[in-house]
C-alpha cells in the first residue's frame, strides 16, 4: 500500500552507509552529497551511523584487548612450521629451492602437513574430481541393497525441467522420470550427453566431468570457491566442433565433496548452448518391495514416486524399517526450518528475493525469485549446505508467469475507496503551505508504515510457525536462533516506529488529533511470542487509516471513515507505543 506520491525521498540507510564507506560510484556520491548538504534529517542519520561505526571499533578494541601485541605463545613455533612446509612440499616453478632454504632454514620436523591439503581454494581440480567421485561410496556401503534417489533441475536457454532418478547399483536397476518438461530439453540433453560420451544414468557427477576432461588433448583447469562450495572449471584449449563441450563446471560441497551443480557449455554453429543441472534432492535408502515399484515398467507419476527426502549426511544408519530410515524427525525438520529462515534473513533474501519457506512432511522447501544469476548461485550454494532442504530459486527474468510471484498486499486489496479523495490531505497542505512538503511527509509516513507492518508480520509469522509446544521440544541452539530472528524483526519494527512517531505530528494535527504522547496502556514486555496485543493488527489498521486520510491509493476497508479515524487512531498509537517502547526488551 505504497502511496506512490511523486516526491523526493530521503536517502536510504543503505545509501548513507555506502556513502560513509566510500562505496558509491561517482555520480551517486555527488547526488548523495548534494542531498546531505540540503537535508538535516539525513545529515543527522549519517552522524548516527558514523558514531555507531566508531562505537563498534571502540567495543571491539575493549573486548579484544587492544594491548594484545602477541598471542599467548608469542608466535612460537611458526618459523618451525614454515621450515617444515619448505622441506616437505615440492616447489613448483619457484626459482630455487636453496633460496627458500636460505630464507627459512631447514631444521626438519615430524609434524604432518596434511592440514595444508584440507578443502580450500588451493585444492587441485584432480583432487576435487577424485574425492567427489568417491563421495557416494560411504552412503552406499551403509545399505545392504542401496537405492539412490536424486532429483535435479535442468536448465538451458530459458527452458527448465525436473529430472528424478532412481538408481539401484547392486540390482542394476535404473529409472528416470522427467517432470514439467519445457520444450525439447530432454531430447537435447540426451543428444548432447551421447555425443560427448557422458553417462546419462549419472547426469550430475564428477565421473562425467572427469571423463570429458580426460578426452581432451589440451585443457585448462580453474578451482573456484563460493561459500560452501568448491568448483572445478575445465576449458578445452583445442578447437571444438558443433555439439562438443567447450567448457564444463562442477560444484561440490566442501563438507563432503558431494556434487550439487554441474554445467556444460556446448559449441553450436555461431553460438554456445549451456546446460545446467542443479541437485534439489538426494537420498540413499534400502531397496525394498515398496520403493522397488518405481522400477515397474509403467512409468510412475512423479507425485507418487518414492523420492521422499533430502538428506546427505554420510551417516551409516543401523538396519531398521524403511519408514524409519527415510522419515526425518520432525524436530530435525523444524530446526532446519529455523536455520533456513535465519540464513535467508541474514542474506536479506526474505525481502530482496521474496524468499518463502515451507515445511512439508519430510523436507523444507525454499522458493525465491532473484534478479541475477550471481544472486541465484549465492542463494543456492548456501542452501545446498543445509540438509533436508529443497531450493527452488528462480530468476525473475525466466519466470514463466506473473502468477508465480507472491501476491503483494497492494494488489490483493479491493479498491473500495479508489475514487474518493483523501480525507485530510487538504488541511495538511494548508498547514505546511506546500503540496510538495505535504506529499513528502505522507510519503515518508506510508513508507515507514509499510516497513513496520512487514517487520511485525514477520514476528507474528514466527509465533504462528513455532507455537509453544513446538518451541518446548527445540534444543537451545535452535531456540537462540529463533529468538535472535524474532528480536531482529522487533528491533527493526521499533526503529520504524520511532521514525514514524518523529514524523507524525503534522499529520495528527491535520486530523485534529492530539499529538501528545500516546495514552499509557499496559506494557506487555516479555518474550516476543507473548505479545498481548497483536501489534501487527494495530499497524495494519493504522496503515489503512493513513492511506484513507492522506492518499488517493485504493485499499482502505469500507469501515474506515473520518469518524473512525479520529476515534480509533489514538488507541492504535497507544498499543504500538506500548509494544514497541524503546526500553521494552522482549
Amino acid at each position: 500500500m505504497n502511496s506512490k506520491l511523486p516526491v523526493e525521498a530521503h536517502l536510504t540507510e543503505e545509501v548513507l552507509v555506502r556513502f560513509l564507506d566510500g562505496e558509491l560510484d561517482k555520480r551517486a556520491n555527488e547526488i548523495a552529497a548534494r542531498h546531505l548538504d540540503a537535508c538535516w534529517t539525513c545529515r543527522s542519520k549519517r552522524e548516527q551511523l558514523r558514531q555507531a561505526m566508531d562505537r563498534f571499533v571502540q567495543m571491539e578494541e575493549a573486548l579484544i584487548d587492544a594491548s594484545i601485541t602477541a598471542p599467548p605463545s608469542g608466535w612460537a613455533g611458526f618459523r618451525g612450521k614454515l621450515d617444515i612446509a619448505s622441506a616437505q612440499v615440492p616447489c613448483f616453478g619457484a626459482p630455487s629451492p636453496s633460496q627458500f632454504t636460505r630464507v627459512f632454514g631447514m631444521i626438519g620436523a615430524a609434524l604432518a602437513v596434511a592440514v595444508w591439503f584440507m578443502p580450500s581454494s588451493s585444492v587441485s581440480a584432480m583432487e576435487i574430481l577424485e574425492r567427489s567421485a568417491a563421495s557416494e561410496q560411504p552412503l552406499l556401503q551403509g545399505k545392504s541393497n542401496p537405492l539412490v534417489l536424486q532429483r535435479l533441475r535442468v536448465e538451458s536457454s530459458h527452458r527448465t525441467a525436473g529430472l528424478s532418478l532412481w538408481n539401484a547399483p547392486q540390482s542394476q536397476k535404473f529409472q528416470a522420470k522427467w517432470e514439467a518438461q519445457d520444450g525439447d530439453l530432454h531430447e537435447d540433453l540426451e543428444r548432447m550427453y551421447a555425443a560427448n560420451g557422458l553417462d546419462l544414468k549419472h547426469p550430475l557427477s564428477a565421473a562425467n566431468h572427469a571423463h570429458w576432461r580426460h578426452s581432451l588433448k589440451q585443457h585448462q583447469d580453474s578451482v573456484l570457491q563460493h561459500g560452501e562450495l568448491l568448483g572445478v572449471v575445465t576449458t578445452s584449449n583445442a578447437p571444438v566442433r558443433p555439439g562438443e563441450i567447450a567448457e564444463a563446471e562442477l560444484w561440490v560441497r566442501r563438507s563432503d565433496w558431494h556434487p550439487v551443480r554441474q554445467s556444460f557449455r556446448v559449441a553450436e554453429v555461431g553460438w554456445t548452448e549451456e546446460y545446467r543441472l542443479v541437485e534439489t534432492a538426494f537420498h540413499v535408502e534400502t531397496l525394498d518391495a515398496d520403493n522397488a515399484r518405481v522400477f515397474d515398467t509403467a512409468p510412475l507419476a512423479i507425485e507418487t514416486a518414492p523420492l521422499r527426502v533430502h538428506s546427505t549426511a554420510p551417516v551409516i544408519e543401523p538396519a531398521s524399517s524403511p519408514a524409519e530410515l527415510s522419515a526425518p524427525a520432525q524436530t530435525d525438520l523444524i530446526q532446519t526450518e529455523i536455520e533456513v529462515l535465519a540464513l535467508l534473513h541474514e542474506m536479506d533474501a526474505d525481502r530482496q528475493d521474496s524468499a518463502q519457506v515451507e515445511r512439508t512432511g519430510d523436507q523444507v522447501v525454499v522458493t525465491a525469485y532473484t534478479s541475477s544469476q550471481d544472486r541465484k548461485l549465492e542463494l543456492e550454494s548456501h542452501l545446498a549446505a543445509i540438509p533436508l532442504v529443497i531450493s527452488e530459486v528462480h530468476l525473475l527474468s525466466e519466470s514463466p508467469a506473473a502468477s508465480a510471484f507472491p501476491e503483494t498486499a497492494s494488489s490483493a486489496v479491493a479498491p473500495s475507496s479508489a475514487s474518493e479523495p483523501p480525507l485530510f490531505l487538504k488541511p495538511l497542505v494548508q498547514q505546511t503551505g506546500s503540496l510538495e512538503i505535504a506529499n513528502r511527509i505522507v510519503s515518508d509516513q506510508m513508507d515507514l508504515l509499510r516497513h513496520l507492518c512487514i517487520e511485525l508480520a514477520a514476528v507474528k509469522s514466527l509465533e504462528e510457525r513455532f507455537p509453544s509446544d513446538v518451541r518446548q521440544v527445540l534444543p537451545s541452539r535452535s531456540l537462540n536462533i529463533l529468538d535472535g530472528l524474532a528480536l531482529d524483526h522487533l528491533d527493526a519494527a521499533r526503529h520504524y516506529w520511532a521514525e514514524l512517531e518523529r514524523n507524525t505530528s503534522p499529520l495528527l494535527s491535520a486530523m485534529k488529533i492530539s499529538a501528545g504522547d500516546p495514552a499509557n496502556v499496559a506494557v506487555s514486555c516479555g518474550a516476543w511470542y507473548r505479545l498481548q496485543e497483536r501489534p501487527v493488527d494495530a499497524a495494519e489498521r493504522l496503515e489503512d487509516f493513513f492511506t484513507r486520510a492522506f492518499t488517493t491509493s485504493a485499499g482502505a476497508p469500507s469501515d474506515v471513515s473520518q469518524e473512525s479515524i479520529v476515534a480509533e487512531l489514538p488507541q492504535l498509537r497507544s498499543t504500538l507505543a506500548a509494544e514497541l517502547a524503546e526500553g521494552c526488551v522482549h
Partner: protein
Amino acid sequence: MAANDDLGALTLGKWLFVAPREEAQTLDQVLSGLFDELRLPLYRYVVAMLGSPAEAEDVTQECFVKLFLEMRSGRGLDSPKAWLFRVGHNLVLDRWRSTSPAHSLDGPALNVADERYPSSEEALLQQERLALMRAAINRLSTQQRLCLHLRTESFRYREIANILGVSESTVCENIRRGLSRLIKDCHEL
C-alpha cells in the same frame, strides 16, 4: 595503512617467476613485511571469530604457512591481505564444523578479555561496562559482526564479499543492520 596497501598491491607469484637473483632479498623482505604487517590484524579477526586467543594464534600461523605454500606454487596474489583473511575465515569455519557439524555461520559468542581486570571497585565497574559491550556485540549476528570488523580493516565491500563468500549487497545489508542495531544499543553504554 599505507604499508598494507603497498603490500596488498604486490603480485608475489609474478615476482617469483621473473625476479632476477639480485632481488632475491626482496622476497625475504616481502614475507617478513607481510608477517609483521598482517599477523596482528588477522589474529584479531580470528580472535573475534573464535573467541579463543590460543586457537586464534594457531589459525593465524596456519594462514601464513598456507601463504608461503601459495607463493611457492607460483600463483599470483593480487592482494595477500584479502587472501589471508579469506583463508583464515575458512579455517575457522572448518573448526566450527568439526566441533558442531550442523551449523553454518554461527560461531561462539564473543567472550574474551574476562580476566583482565582485578576485583577492585573500579575493576568491577569496568567489568560491568565490558559486559554491556559484550552484550551489544553479541546481539549482532555473526555475519554482521564479521562484516563490520572487516570494514574496520579497510577492506572494500567487494573484498569482504569475497572473504565471506557472499554478495556485495549482502555485505552492505549486514553492515547497515549491524549499525542500526548498535545505534539502538549504544544508549545503554
